[in-house]
Each structure stands twice: as structure tokens, then as C-alpha cells.
């Protein structure tokens, strides 16, 4: 491997590392706390730009053969996840962004980058841990109420379980195929001995846990509720996206055997149904988004049923749309005390206090519900088309009906904002400054993806 390849192939990650170091150094040398927003923003934009540029010029390379390689798909996925972090930074800045938060966010993003380039299970494990570990800290750092600590604890324990399950799966893969590369895992996918099957089931279960698929979802509502708004936004979109994109990469061009197929059909379906049903009963905005994200994890996992060529496109497009619409909703949430702004009741009559925010949240909700002309519809269409093209017509129809269950919960939010009288005492204010900028940025992106989905699909 040439030094040049070493430098270029991991350029986005290198840029993230430079950013982390820069923020660290600035923090050390300066005598008062510095605002790390600008360095962090430049870092993320540079990393995303680098990934996008490498993707456009068709770069592919393997600086560490068998461990780390990048190709068109990996670079596109990185560009998407890094760009999606931009609104998170704005949201974090509108609340509290000290250098610790910024560094932890960037480190977590570095983990996402590693995961998406991993060629061996160990590298994948390393990436996944680097993605998750800063998050445990980020959830506590938000510390706005006692629940934050509890949420972080739950997240930590269940994340630890996920880690253990993944490690067990990896060791079973080693035992069954004698290797740790992703090809060995694909061999295990095709294998029909107990060891291989156990390995595959454990690895998939670990990913499902990280992505919050039923029945491994119980941590999500508590963790989302306990974390601050930007961290919740980050968990619901980028972490989930990174995990599922890494799984798509891990599967590669391999398909699932009939037994695994049954699991990959049943659990996501259950996720959609349960996520949508449970979300209907929630009174808190973040819990609602948590259950909705459980349902959306179901749609994302559905893409794995499709043919290998279509999976990546379907998942990436879905992650873009789902990420943007969630960010849009979070960015428009009215300001106020953390517990107060989280209550759905606070959204009642929002249209009369802040019409702009109400309309934008409504756009986000309708997009999440998959109602055209908003981009969520095209994303849903693509996922279910992928499933149907794989010949699983009945599964796709049942999945669509399960997605129908979700419509009500999003309509309920709109009903609160437009059709319910405002609460007697209003103690929240319209979002301003950085959050409003984040809303504008994501709105522009949502409109772009909504009006010209063909352009975005062409980039992938």
C-alpha cells in the first residue's frame, strides 16, 4: 500500500481525527472555555466533503487489506452520515456545546466511519464500540434531570449486552469458518451447521439490538427520553443509520438462508406493528420518536430481504430521508424547560403561537408517515419495491399495512398543533438562532430530496 493510498482512503476519518485534536488542543491552551462549534462544523463538513469527493471520482482502495477498505458504497454512506451530523451540531449549539460534547460526537462519528469500511469482524466490532461508547457519555452529559443518569445506565447495560452478543457471534464465526473476515461471515451465512447458524443469529441479534428492533428495543424509549434533544436526534438517525448500513456491508452480496429469512421477516414486521402501536399512546415527544424509530428500524431491516444490488440504495436513501425529517422535527421543537418542551401537550395550538414551526413539524410528521409529496413516501416506496422484487409479495403487502398503522400517530401530532386549543399556561418559546438555522438547512434538504428524488438517487 502506498502512503498516498493510506492517506486518501481514510481521508474523511483523518479529517475527523484532526478536528478532534484541534478542539482538544484549543481547549488545553486557552485559559477560558472556547466555543467548539466552528471547528466541529468545519471538521464535519470537511469530512463529508472528502467522502463525497472520493465517491464522485470513483475512488476505491484497501490501505489495510482484509481490515479496512473503501469503495463507492462505503464513501457514499459516510458522506450521508457526516452531512446528517451538521444539523446535530447546530442543535447541540443551541443547547449546550462544550468541547467535551463536540469531541465525543466527532469520536462517535469516527467509529461510524470505521464500521462502514470494515473488512473484518474485529474492525467492525471496534467501529461499533467507538460509535457507542461516546454516546453513553453524551447521554449523561445532557444531565438535565435525574432520568438522564438512569437512561445512560440502561443504555450502557443493554449496549454492553449487545457488545457481548456480538463478540460471541464473532467467536462462533471464527470457530465455524476459521476466519474473522467478512467473507468468513458470508460463508457462515451460507453454512448450515449449528455453529455457523448460531454465529449469524448472534451477530444479527446484536445489530438488531443496536438498531432497536423488537424484541431488542426496550432501551430505546428510556435512552431517547433521558438524553438531550441533539443527542436523541443523533441516536435516532445517525447511529441507527450507521448500524444498518454496516450490516448491509457485512451481508455484501450474500442472501439470507430460509431460516434467517424467517427471522428477518418476522422481527422487523413485529417492530413496525409494535413500534407504531406503542407510539400512539406516548405523551412525550422523544418517547414518541423512539417508538416511531423502532418502527422505522423495521422498515430499514426489511431492505435486507431484497436483492443485494438494491439493498444499499434503498437503505441509504431511507437513512437520508428519515434522518432529515427527524432533524427537522427536533429543530422546530419550541424552546423551554427540557421536560416541558418534551410533552406533547406543549405542542397544542402551536400553529397559533409559531406557525412556521407547526408547519415544518407537520411536514416532518407527514414525511415520517410516508405520505406523498414528502420524501418519506419515495423512501418507503423504494424499500417495499426492493422487497417485492425479491419475490416476497405477501411480506411487502403485510409490511405496507403495518406501516399504515403508523399514520395515526403522526396525524395526532398534527391534530395537536393545528386543531387543539393551546394549554392555559404557555411556557415555551419559538425556537430561534442555531435551532432555527438547523430547521432551515434541513428544510432545504427535505425539499430537495422531496422534489428531486431522482437527483439524490443518482448520486448514490
Amino acid at each position: 500500500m502506498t502512503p498516498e493510498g493510506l492517506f486518501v482512503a481514510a481521508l474523511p476519518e483523518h479529517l475527523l481525527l484532526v478536528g478532534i485534536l484541534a478542539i482538544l488542543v484549543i481547549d488545553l491552551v486557552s485559559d477560558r472555555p472556547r466555543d467548539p462549534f466552528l471547528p466541529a462544523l468545519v471538521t464535519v463538513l470537511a469530512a463529508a466533503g472528502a467522502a463525497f469527493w472520493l465517491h464522485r471520482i470513483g475512488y476505491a482502495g484497501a490501505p489495510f487489506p482484509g481490515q479496512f477498505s473503501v469503495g463507492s458504497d462505503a464513501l457514499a454512506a459516510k458522506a450521508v452520515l457526516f452531512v446528517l451530523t451538521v444539523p446535530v451540531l447546530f442543535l447541540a449549539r443551541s443547547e449546550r456545546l462544550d468541547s467535551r460534547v463536540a469531541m465525543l460526537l466527532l469520536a462517535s462519528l469516527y467509529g461510524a466511519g470505521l464500521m462502514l469500511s470494515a473488512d473484518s469482524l474485529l474492525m467492525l466490532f471496534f467501529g461499533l464500540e467507538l460509535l457507542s461508547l461516546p454516546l453513553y457519555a453524551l447521554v449523561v452529559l445532557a444531565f438535565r434531570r435525574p432520568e438522564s443518569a438512569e437512561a445512560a445506565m440502561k443504555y450502557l447495560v443493554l449496549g454492553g449486552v449487545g457488545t457481548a452478543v456480538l463478540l460471541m457471534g464473532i467467536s462462533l464465526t471464527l470457530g465455524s469458518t476459521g476466519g474473522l473476515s467478512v467473507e468468513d461471515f458470508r460463508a457462515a451465512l451460507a453454512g448450515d451447521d449449528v455453529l455457523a447458524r448460531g454465529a449469524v443469529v448472534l451477530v444479527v441479534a446484536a445489530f438488531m439490538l443496536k438498531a432497536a428492533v423488537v424484541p431488542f428495543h426496550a432501551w430505546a424509549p428510556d435512552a431517547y427520553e433521558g438524553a438531550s434533544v441533539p443527542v436523541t436526534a443523533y441516536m435516532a438517525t445517525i447511529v441507527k443509520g450507521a448500524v444498518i448500513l454496516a450490516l448491509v456491508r457485512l451481508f455484501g452480496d450474500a442472501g439470507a438462508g430460509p431460516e434467517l429469512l424467517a427471522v428477518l421477516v418476522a422481527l422487523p414486521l413485529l417492530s413496525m406493528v409494535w413500534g407504531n402501536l406503542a407510539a400512539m399512546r406516548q405523551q412525550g415527544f422523544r418517547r414518541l420518536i423512539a417508538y416511531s424509530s423502532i418502527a422505522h428500524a423495521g422498515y430499514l431491516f426489511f431492505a435486507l430481504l431484497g436483492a443485494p444490488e438494491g439493498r444499499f440504495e434503498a437503505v441509504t436513501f431511507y437513512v437520508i430521508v428519515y434522518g432529515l425529517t427527524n432533524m427537522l422535527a427536533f429543530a422546530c421543537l419550541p424552546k423551554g424547560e427540557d421536560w416541558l418542551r418534551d410533552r406533547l401537550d406543549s405542542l397544542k395550538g402551536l400553529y397559533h403561537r409559531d406557525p412556521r414551526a407547526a408547519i415544518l413539524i407537520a411536514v416532518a410528521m407527514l414525511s415520517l408517515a410516508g405520505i406523498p409529496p414528502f420524501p418519506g413516501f419515495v423512501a418507503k416506496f423504494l424499500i417495499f419495491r426492493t422487497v417485492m422484487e425479491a419475490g416476497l409479495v405477501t411480506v411487502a403487502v403485510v409490511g405496507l399495512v403495518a406501516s399504515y398503522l403508523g399514520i395515526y400517530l403522526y396525524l395526532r401530532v398534527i391534530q395537536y398543533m393545528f386543531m387543539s386549543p393551546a394549554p392555559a399556561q404557555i411556557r415555551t418559546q419559538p425556537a430561534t438562532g442555531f435551532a432555527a438555522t438547523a430547521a432551515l438547512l434541513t428544510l432545504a434538504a427535505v425539499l430537495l430530496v422531496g422534489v428531486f428524488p431522482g437527483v439524490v438517487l443518482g448520486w448514490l
Partner: protein
Amino acid sequence: MSEALALNLLLFLPVIGGILLLALPERRADLVRGLAMVVLLAQLALAAWLYLRFQAGVPGLQFETRLPWIPAWGVHYHIALDGLNLLLVLLTAFLGPIVVAGAFTSITRDVKLFHGMVMFIQFTMLGTFLAQDLFLFYVFWEAMLIPMFLMIGIWGGERRIYATLKFFLYTAFGSILMLAAIIYLAHTVLSADGTPSFAFADLYELGLGVQVQTVLLAAFALSFAIKVPMVPLHTWLPDAHVEAPTAGSVILAGVLLKMGTYGFLKLGFPLFPDAALLATPLIMTLAVISIIYGAGLALVQDDIKKIIAYSSVSHLGYVMLGLVTYNLLGVQGAIIQMVSHGLVAGGLFLMVGMIYERCHSRDLADYGGLAKLLPAYSVFFMILTLAAIGLPTTSGFTGEFLVLLGAFHAAWPQFEQGVNHPLVLASLAVLGIVLGALYMLRLARRLLFGEARAPVAGLRDLSLREMGILGVLVLAVFYIGLFPNDFLQKTEQAAMEYQERILAARDGEIER
């Protein structure tokens, strides 16, 4: 200006209007109303011009625009006029200014949002009619629910939340199965000739097996039948109508209900002709049940809005009956009936709104002898009542008469071959006209005649604005009743193509 450009402008004028509305201050309700009015009048002018330029007897689409939208999937932004959507586009554009004018005094809350929603709904309805690409059609079809949901939910009556959620969830359930069918079709067309396509013209040529057709038609038909609505899928309609504000009711009855019948006419039957032929007896039966049952329900209601809502179920039954005759008389009659019902039911809902604004009651028991109190109101109400009954010289007559003629025309040869049910059903449909006269005259008698009383004293008669709105509507009703020829000529070619598409399937059956 080229016609294709004008057609695009016609479609996007409400979007432009909506964006301009955003710039206006909320307090200036007069400016908001004025702007909405100007935009929709301009739209009507464009629609009228395009109608005049539309050439009768030319096969296929006219004033076409086709641009790639999602190239990888073969999805196009593809709009055009043809004989099937021409009159409905005209109707939509015609009702737009009427809705805005009708809401001048009744909508005083959130005026800006209201007119924004009117713009939004005009855009999506016109888009649904104009779309010649299945994906685009579905986008508009489903997007239409959003402004209607808000319109009923924000400006509606007491049980508005229940009614609007029922409306949305009911119709969205049909749509989700239609979406499944569309995705299935997308992947079929992809594998059939290599290049993916969603164009209606390509989909017509598919030649699917009868079994697949039946399943797909069932999915499409469920969605369309809910929108029509056909008995037994009609239960959302009375709630939505009763709770909706007047403007919402006018749009709902005037245009939205035609989406279902238009869907059958443009997509459901021609896409799956073999399945359509198989399903014809069922659809015919349901259509006649809708006619009789809708009329029967209208006969026993005391809520004025409910009477007109159920009468819509009955009148759209005629449209469905006309569509499954597969002959020119029936199909053209169905198209005229769609337009006629849009005008008449729209007008009646407006008139109910006007009296409700004055008296705040929709209960028939509260009223009587309005003919003495409100002479001008009563004249207009009587004219619309007679049009709803289908008296000759009104549009209702042209539509229903042609449909029944077509139904008998189709039934007779079958009767001679020993198949009785089409003739029986057609005869029962005639009974619907008698029932129609019964419930409409009952409504008119209880409202206009008898002892003069009203819930409040000192009613004022129609204002100039209201007379203007109703006058225009009544003129249109008489125009179609007296001079239907132009409408019939411009729809003839398309109706013929529809008929041939389905009859070709029947002939294929005989050859096989």
C-alpha cells in the same frame, strides 16, 4: 403561449398563489381573499381557454408534457388533457373561485391557512386528473388527503376531529393497498420490456393474466370505491360532510368524490379489462344498491347536510352504473353526471352553508316556509333541487338519462340471450330517480313551504355576492342541460377508446 405550457401553468398557479399568500400578513384577510380569488380566476380562465382549444375527435392525449422525474425508475412528470379529464379539470377550476367566494363571510379564523389549503387542494386535485404517470398520480392522489384533513379538522363542526381522522384513515387504508398494487405493477413492467415505465399508455398494454388482474383490480377498486363512495364503504362520507365547513363540503362533493369514479374510468377498468369484465355484475349490483340505499337513507334524515351527503352516494351510483355499461351512451352519461353532480351538490352544500350561517341549525325540524321569508334563496334552492332530481333542461337530466339509456342498451342484448340481471338492475336504477324526487322534494317542502318559521327572526335574503355565486352555478347547470352537445363531442373519442379497450378484452375472450 403554447397549450402545453398553459396546462402546466394551470396546474402550478395554485402553488405560486400559495407561496404569494405566505408573504401576506395574517391580519389582512381582505388581501388574502383577494389574492386567492385572482389566482383561481386566472386558473379558470386558463382552463376555459384550454377547453376551447381542445380538439374533439383526436385520439390520445393533447397538450402533453413529459419530463423525467426519477429516471432510474422510469417515473415521469407527465401531464396531459384527454376527453376523460377535460371536463373534470374544467369543473375543478370552475369551483375554485366559487369556494373562495363562498367562504368570504363563513371563514374568519386562520384565513391565510384556509386559503393556503384551498390552493393546496386545487393543486393536488388538478394534478390527480392531469397525471398520465401512475407514480405521479399516486403522489397527487394521496397528497390530496392532507389539505382536506386540515380543512375539516380546523374549520369543522363539533365532532370535527373524529370526522377528519375517520376520513383520513378510511381513505388512506384504501390507498395503502393501491400502493402495494402499484409497486407490484412497477416491478412487473420493469421485467416485461426492460425499460421501467409508469406511463398509463404503457400500462394499458401489459396484458396480465386474469388472476393477477383480479387481485390488482381488487386493490385499486377498494381505494377508488372508498373515495366514490360505494355502499358499503360510504360510512366516512356523512361524518366528513356534516362536520366539514361549507367550503370543505363543496370541494368534497364537487370534485373529491369524482376522484374515485375517475380512477375507475381512467385506471381501474382499462388497466385490468379482463378482471373488470369479471367484476361487472358485482360492480353493477353495488352501484344499484348505492343508488337505492343512498336514496333511502337520504329520505329519512333530518340533518340537511346528511340528506345531501347521502344523495351524493345515490348520484355517484349512477356514475358507476354508467361506467360498467361499456357503451358510449353510458360512459359519456357517467362523465356528464360527474360534472353535473359536482355543480348541483356543490351548489346545494353552498346553500345549506348560507342558511346555516344565518340560523346556525341544520335540523330540518327547525325550518319551514322559507319561501315567504327568503324568496330569492328559495328560487335558487328550488332550481338546484329540480336539477338534483334530474328534471329535463337541467344537467342532472342529461347525465342520468344517458346513463340509464346506456344501461338498458347494454342490458337488452343480454336479456335476449337469457341473462336477466342487467335488465333487472337497470330497472331498479330507474326507481332511484323516483326516490330521488321523493327525498329532494321532501327536503324542499319542509324547508321552503308550510308554516313560515325559522330558528331566528329577521333573516336577510341572499346578498349580491351569494346571488352571484349561485347564479353562475345555475347558469352552468342549465347550459349542460340545454346544450350538452359540445361536452359530448369533446368526450366522445376518449369514451370510445375506453370502450374499445375493455371490449377488446371481451372479444379476446370469445376468440380464446
